[in-house]
Structures are given as C-alpha cells and as structure tokens.
C-alpha cells in the first residue's frame, strides 16, 4: 500500500487498526506510512482503542530493529564484534557489504589468532596448531607467512583490492617481484581452524610412501620444510618430500640397522647397530663425519652443537660438535635405551637396568637416579613432565620432575602392548599392537610452574583410533600421524591447498 492512505480507509477506524496489526512486517519499511496511520488512529481515539494501543506499543518495541553498522562508529562495531566467536564472525560477514568489511577487519582476526594459536583459548577451549610453515609465493594472492614473526609484531596492514600503492611494513621481509602482500589474519586463523576441525571430525587422507625393504625403526618430521626422514632395518635412511609426496634421496653407508636419527635445517645425525654415528650434510646429501664407537648405538639426541648418544655398552656419550670434545657418562649397568638433552646442561638417560638417571653435563655427575622403572623403552621429557613407557608393561607413566625430585602422578593403562608414543601440546599419540590411539589433552597449562598443581591436572581423552598392524614407530605433528612398517603410512589431517 502506497502513500497517501485513501481517505475512504482513513475514516474506517477499525479497518485501519486491523491493517496495522496484520501488516507490521510490510509496514516497517515505510515509516512515514506508519506515522500517518498512527496519527489518524491516535487523533480519533475512543475507549475501545486501548487494547489496540497497548498491542501497538508492544509490537513497536519489536519493530525497532536497527542495523547498527550504520548507526555506531566503526571502532564501536569492531569492539562489539570482538566479543564474538569465529563462527558468528563469519556469519556476520555474510550480511551485507559493509558488514563484510567490518567483520573481516584484520585487528579482529589478529586477536582471534593470538587467543587460539599455540595456546588453549580461555573461552572455547580450542587450541590451534602453530604450523610454522613458510609458504612459497604462488600467485599474487598468497605470500610467505611466518606466524612467529607476525605474532610478535603489533599491526599487520591488510592489502585491500582497491589500493594501488603498496605499503611497506617492517614485518614483510619476504616478497617476490615488486608486489608486497600480507596474508590477512583471517586466513591464518581459518587454515589452522580447518586443520583442528579435521582432527575433531576425524577427517584424514591416508597416504603411503614405499621404498624401504625392511621395517622402519625411527621417524622424524620437520614441519617447516615438510621433510620426513626414516631410518630402517635395511640399513638405509630415506629422505621424503611431503609436499610432492615422493622420495628425495636414499642415504646409504650404515652397515647395520639404523636405530635412531634426528635432523635440523642443515644436518642429519644417525646412529646404528654398526657402532657408528654418522653426520650427514642435508645440502649436499652426503655423509660428512663418522664417529666410531665401541658398541652399538641405540639412541641419540642433539640440541645445536651438543650430541648425546646411548650405547649397548652401558655408556652415554656426549660430544660437542664444535670443539670435538667427547666424554662418557658411566653408571648404567645395562644397555641405554633412550637419551634426551634438557636445557643444554643436563641429560636424562633410561636403561634396561631399570633406572632412569639425570646427569649434569658440567660436572658429569648423576643428579638423580630413579630406580625400579622396569626397563624403560622410551621416554619423553618436556617442561617438568616426564612420560615413560616400558616394553614389559602396558601403561604410560607420568612423572613430575622438579628440583631433581620425581613424583609419579598418573598412569594410563592400555589393554595392548605399547610400541611407541609421541606427545605434543595438544595431542598424545600411542602406537599399540593393533591400532593407533590419539588422545586429546585438556586441562592443565602449557607453561606451568613446576610446583603448581595445574601442571599435573591434565586429562587425556581418546578421540581417535586407527587400525594398524606391524608398525614399530610413530610420529605426531600438527596435522599428521605418521607410522612406519616397511612403508611409511601418513594420516594427513591437513588442508589441501587446492581445496
């Protein structure tokens, strides 16, 4: 109905009232119409109109709907949107063009990233993987993204499609040609959110890498370069490229089973039952140094230039790769099974003599000796928390180590043989005889003070079970579960870039 109201209708009071009530939704778009109807109705009021008027009043309150993006200044709209979760924020981005612009505001998503990435959000409890991956510049849309450096800088400027001038920003050190784009924080968030969502909905793609002719004994993965390195009983070490899903190189040289390996951006160190430790240069893909030991090497760990290895001759060897100085830590009475360096001045070693020892690298003395540990096969130490597993027991034991004292606070029991396990900030992966179990970690805090109860108040909830027969070792990364038999099996929870 258009203005003006036909005079015939203006006189019919009752009809106007009915028209008003039944057509609220249509009328609201034309406030002048409402105004004129109301004016007529209010002028010619009689006693029977009170019910109508109260109805009008109630309905008017609901009628008043304000698209506040036009009413409030932008900084207040952004403030309001800052209280929303990411789902609501994505929905508001679909309302209108102006809503889209404000909802995609970079500072909003920057805050979301800071709250969720690599830490557990206090509101929703989700923790998103850090994914320190450098992406190559493809077209002009993507550019290299180093989340670590972005987190430390204050503001990232967003490239809008209308801008022709490219603003230079101190964070942007990676660019190709003369186009400098910065990835919006929303994309940073959404990439990681999708991965975490894949984990939770158990959506993965299984890929197999063939090559080894005997079971794989050790696996290591680097997220930055997407390189996976595996060592096997067939005495070879294979380097796999996970972006192309292909074999990059086979390293031969060891004459017996490769038992352990570790690599960083420049070098790979491997230990074998042939009693040697080999250092390989990853640029030239060849062996550059061989350490000959007295007996079989069972485990190794290096941090920067300090290399620790354990041997079947009961000793722990510490070598400084810079100075060449080597010394031995003696004390175990059976083969050493796992070693780990902590804070560059202490070493933890576990052995078949049923003890776990913590040594000081400076004094070469034992700081702590935990006995009756029942032949620990493998352990993991991180931030005061020690997790051990023994091949004779079907459980994982959790210890709290502080001030060279230990306290057992948790035992996770399993029905099957545990073959291997891996833990990161968000998940615990346990390789059992017959299947792989993935646990979600909740509660506790990542950076806990050693004496706080928070450190040990952690819950492990099984979220995923994958069938597996024959794997001997496993690996967990932000978006992958890797296990090795003769072939490398990769359960990829990541997001395909072409999606």
């Amino acid at each position, binding site marked *: 109905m258009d203005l003006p109201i036909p005079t015939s209708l203006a006189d019919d009071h009752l009809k106007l009232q009915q028209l008003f009530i039944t057509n609220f939704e249509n009328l609201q778009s034309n406030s002048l119409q409402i105004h004129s109807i109301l004016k007529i109705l209010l002028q010619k009021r009689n006693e029977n109109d009170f019910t109508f008027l109260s109805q009008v009043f109630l309905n008017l309150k609901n009628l008043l709907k304000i*698209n506040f993006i036009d*009413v*409030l200044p932008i900084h207040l709209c952004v403030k*309001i*949107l800052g209280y929303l979760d990411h*789902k609501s*924020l*994505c929905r508001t981005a679909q309302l209108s063009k102006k809503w889209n612009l404000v909802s995609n505001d970079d500072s909003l998503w920057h805050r979301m990233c800071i709250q969720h990435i690599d830490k557990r959000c206090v509101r929703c409890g989700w923790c998103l993987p850090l994914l320190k991956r450098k992406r190559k510049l493809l077209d002009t849309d993507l550019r290299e993204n180093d989340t670590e450096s972005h987190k430390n800088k204050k503001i990232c400027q967003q490239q809008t499609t209308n801008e022709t001038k490219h603003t230079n920003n101190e964070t942007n050190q990676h660019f190709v040609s003369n186009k400098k784009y910065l990835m919006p924080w929303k994309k940073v968030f959404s990439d990681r959110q999708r991965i975490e969502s894949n984990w939770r909905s158990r959506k993965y793609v299984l890929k197999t890498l063939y090559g080894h002719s005997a079971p794989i004994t050790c696996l290591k993965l680097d997220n930055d370069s997407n390189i996976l390195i595996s060592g096997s009983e067939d005495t070879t070490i294979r380097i796999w490229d996970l972006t192309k899903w292909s074999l990059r190189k086979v390293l031969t040289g060891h004459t017996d089973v490769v038992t352990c390996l570790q690599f960083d951006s420049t070098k790979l160190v491997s230990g074998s039952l042939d009693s040697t430790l080999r250092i390989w240069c990853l640029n030239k893909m060849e062996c550059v140094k061989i350490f000959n030991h007295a007996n079989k090497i069972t485990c190794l760990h290096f941090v920067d230039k300090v290399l620790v290895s354990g041997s079947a001759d009961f000793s722990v060897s510490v070598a400084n790769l810079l100075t060449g100085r080597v010394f031995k830590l003696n004390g175990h009475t059976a083969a050493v099974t796992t070693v780990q360096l902590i804070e560059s001045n202490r070493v933890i070693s576990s052995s078949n003599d049923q003890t776990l020892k913590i040594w000081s690298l400076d004094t070469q003395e034992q700081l702590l000796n935990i006995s009756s540990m029942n032949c620990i096969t493998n352990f993991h130490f991180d931030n005061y928390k020690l997790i051990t597993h023994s091949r004779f027991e079907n459980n994982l034991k959790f210890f709290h180590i502080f001030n060279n004292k230990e306290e057992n606070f948790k035992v996770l029991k399993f029905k099957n043989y545990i073959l291997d396990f891996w833990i990161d900030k968000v998940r615990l992966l346990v390789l059992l005889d017959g299947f792989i179990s993935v646990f979600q970690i909740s509660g506790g805090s990542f950076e806990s003070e050693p004496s706080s109860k928070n450190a040990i108040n952690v819950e492990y909830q099984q979220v995923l079970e994958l069938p597996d027969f024959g794997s001997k070792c496993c690996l967990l990364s932000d978006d992958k579960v890797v296990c090795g038999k003769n072939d490398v099996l990769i359960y990829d929870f990541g997001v395909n870039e072409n999606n």
Partner: protein
Amino acid sequence: MLEDLGDNDDIAIPLPNVSAPILTKVIDYATQHKDDPLVSAEEANAKQSSDDITEWDKEFMNVDQGTLFELILAANYLDIRNLLDLGCKTVANMMKNKTVEELRKTFNVPNDFTPEEEEQVRRENEWCEDH
C-alpha cells in the same frame, strides 16, 4: 571534559549528544556501580568474554534496540568504559548462535549482495560451519 572546566564545580556541562531519558539511564547505572573497583583497560581487554553480565546489568540492558544503541553512544561520548563494555557485550550476546538469516532479521540488515557475490561470500566463510 572535566579537565577543560577547571575547579569550578558549579558550571553545568552541556551534553549535546545525550538526550534526557538516556542520561537518566546512565545516571542509574553509575549509581548502581558507584562502588565498583577500578579495573585497568588491559585487564578488561584481556578477558573478552561476554558471559559475565550480572543479573542487575542484564535487566538494565533489557531495553529496545533504540535505547540500547543510544546508551552505547552515550557511554562512548561520556567515556564510561564499564557501561560501554556492558552495552557491547549485550549486543554481542544478541548476535551469538544465530544463522545469517536470523541475524538479518534481528538487525534488519538489507542484503546488498548480488546473488553471485552472496554465493562467493558464503563460500569464503563456509569453513567455520564445519563442526
């Protein structure tokens, strides 16, 4: 504002941006909260949760949208951070757990996307609906 006036308490401060009924509401709020402990801006920002509204505050904010947004504008103009936070949290709570259509109806947002643009925007944002 107060700094500009100096020490004279008797001068009336004109508030051209705040209407009388809204100012009454603001005074009600300030009276209720006059003994609240001071919270620094960083602490308030760090929390970023909209679930911590007290019963009195919830009842206070149970008004029509017109009053609600006018209160937010008044709190912004008068620099009353607690009231501003409360107003923004209230609006945020009105937006949570609503579909796009429900949001459109709640705030009467006209859809100015073409069907192609709308589909594109929907696809750009569908990652959040996965769980």
